[in-house]
């Protein structure tokens, strides 16, 4: 503990002078970095538009109310598509994520030096790229439509499900697996009877949680042409039909709240 003599009295300080300087210097660097970044942003910004923003916001706000309620008739099918994209995408992700999770978990991977890094790379790639970018990619490969959205959601969800699942696999009770293999069970039987029952609740929870996120994400996939209610949002925005935009946003909000409610209920029932 640094203590200095100060006019005859001993003075306690929390840090040594050197450390205090190091921290101060760290803050200086941080602030300098922030100011530099802010300068970069500021240089390419037309500040006139910024100061004009409240008026524009008021203008758009004024155009957005009241919502065009009659437009709801055209939203039922896209809403159904959105639900399908999220659900089928989650199902697709599960099929791909479970093997990846088993390959990535330290205690079940066939080879820690070769296969585990590949599985981890799959997980990080899937997680780093947003579903909108996956959708953009798939739309340019297989054309616009629900299928592109479904596969995009599927690819995006692999990382999330596999990561949480392999962490759950690594935390299992080893004794149960050993007990199963002591009966002469094969590797697959050990997985089915020793590991699966232990991770089933976590797995169900993760799946429902991801489904909830996927509903949220699939509502905007249409912005890049991958189907769902986002298509309607995009076309309404393109023709500046603000009352329709309001109604679509309300619909999306209700869908998101509904999926959150469902997922909370199901997780509550499982865990």
């Amino acid at each position, binding site marked *: 503990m640094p203590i200095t003599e100060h006019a005859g009295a001993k003075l306690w300080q929390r840090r040594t002078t050197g450390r205090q300087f190091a921290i101060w210097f760290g803050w200086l660097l941080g602030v300098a970095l922030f100011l530099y970044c802010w300068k970069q942003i*500021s240089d*390419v910004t037309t500040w006139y538009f910024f100061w004009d923003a409240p008026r524009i916001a008021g203008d758009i706000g004024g155009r957005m109310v009241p919502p065009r309620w009659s437009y709801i008739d055209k939203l039922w099918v896209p809403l159904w598509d959105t639900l399908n994209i999220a659900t089928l995408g989650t199902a697709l992700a599960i099929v791909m994520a479970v093997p990846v999770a088993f390959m990535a978990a330290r205690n079940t991977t066939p080879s820690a030096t070769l296969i585990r890094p590949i599985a981890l790379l799959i997980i990080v790639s899937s997680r780093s790229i947003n579903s909108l970018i996956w959708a953009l990619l798939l739309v340019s490969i*297989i054309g616009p*439509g629900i299928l592109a959205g479904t596969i995009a959601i599927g690819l995006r969800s692999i990382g999330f499900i596999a990561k949480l699942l392999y962490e759950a696999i690594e935390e299992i009770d080893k004794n149960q697996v050993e007990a199963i293999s002591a009966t002469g069970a094969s590797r697959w039987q050990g997985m089915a009877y020793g590991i699966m029952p232990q991770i089933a609740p976590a797995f169900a929870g993760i799946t429902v949680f991801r489904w909830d996120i996927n509903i949220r994400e699939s509502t905007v996939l249409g912005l890049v042409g991958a189907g769902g209610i986002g298509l309607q949002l995009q076309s309404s925005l393109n023709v500046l039909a603000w009352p329709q935009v309001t109604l679509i946003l309300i619909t999306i909000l209700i869908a998101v709240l509904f999926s959150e409610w469902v997922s909370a209920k199901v997780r509550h029932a499982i865990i």
Partner: protein
Amino acid sequence: MSDTGFDAQDLARRWRPPPLIASARLRWLLGLGAAIYFALAIGTLEVNWLRIYEGLDRGWAFVIAFTDPDFSTRWIDIRDGLIESLVMTVTSTVIGIAISIPIAFGAARNIAPLPVYLLCRAIIAVSRSLQEIIIAIFFVAIFGFGPLAGVLTLSFATIGFLSKLLAEDIEDIDKGQAEAVRATGARWLQLMNYGIQPQVMPRLIGLSLYRLDINFRESAVVGLVGAGGIGATLNTAFDRYEFDTAAAILISIIGIVMIAEYSSGLIRARVQ
């Protein structure tokens, strides 16, 4: 053994693992419902096999492009886009944290009065329920094209994330320490500074680093609607079917995210 009526082999053969859902009727009903739903849902997919067949070449070209990404042709665009994304990430995370901290204090039930609590919780709920991309569309419409709209979008999204998790951490603090500080006659600000802030600091640093990571990933997306960053470059690359350039951008994003995750893991391990 037959006189005891106990046949171990027979029992073992008839044993089945206990099902996840105990009620047989509910189990069958759920299974049937799921089957019907999936049949209906897959029916709506409208798969255009011809289009997919044509797309296979392009998909394969993309996979090939990943093994041979083209950084050089559009190097200037990629570099500028990535730098802009990074700049947006830093700015929006700092602004987001600066706004989140007061809101987090307001949203913690144990230190905030009820009206403040409700207001802050409402702000968090709004920020969390709106998708980044939708906010970005509105901010672009309001503030004009460019990275400022992106920065504001990401800052706004940061508020919902950081305030909520930080508020939960503040609600979980050890009350004894705060009371001890209060007992010395500390004012409200001193109580926050010495009684509460040290307890939540490790979590705040961890969350901030995590959010920095998320903001970088999201900054690649907001560019799709004109809010700056690497997204615009990526979108153009896809539109022109320049898969090798797109692959280069995606590899850069993945690489930066991996570096960020690894280094934030190191820092978090040190502070926690």
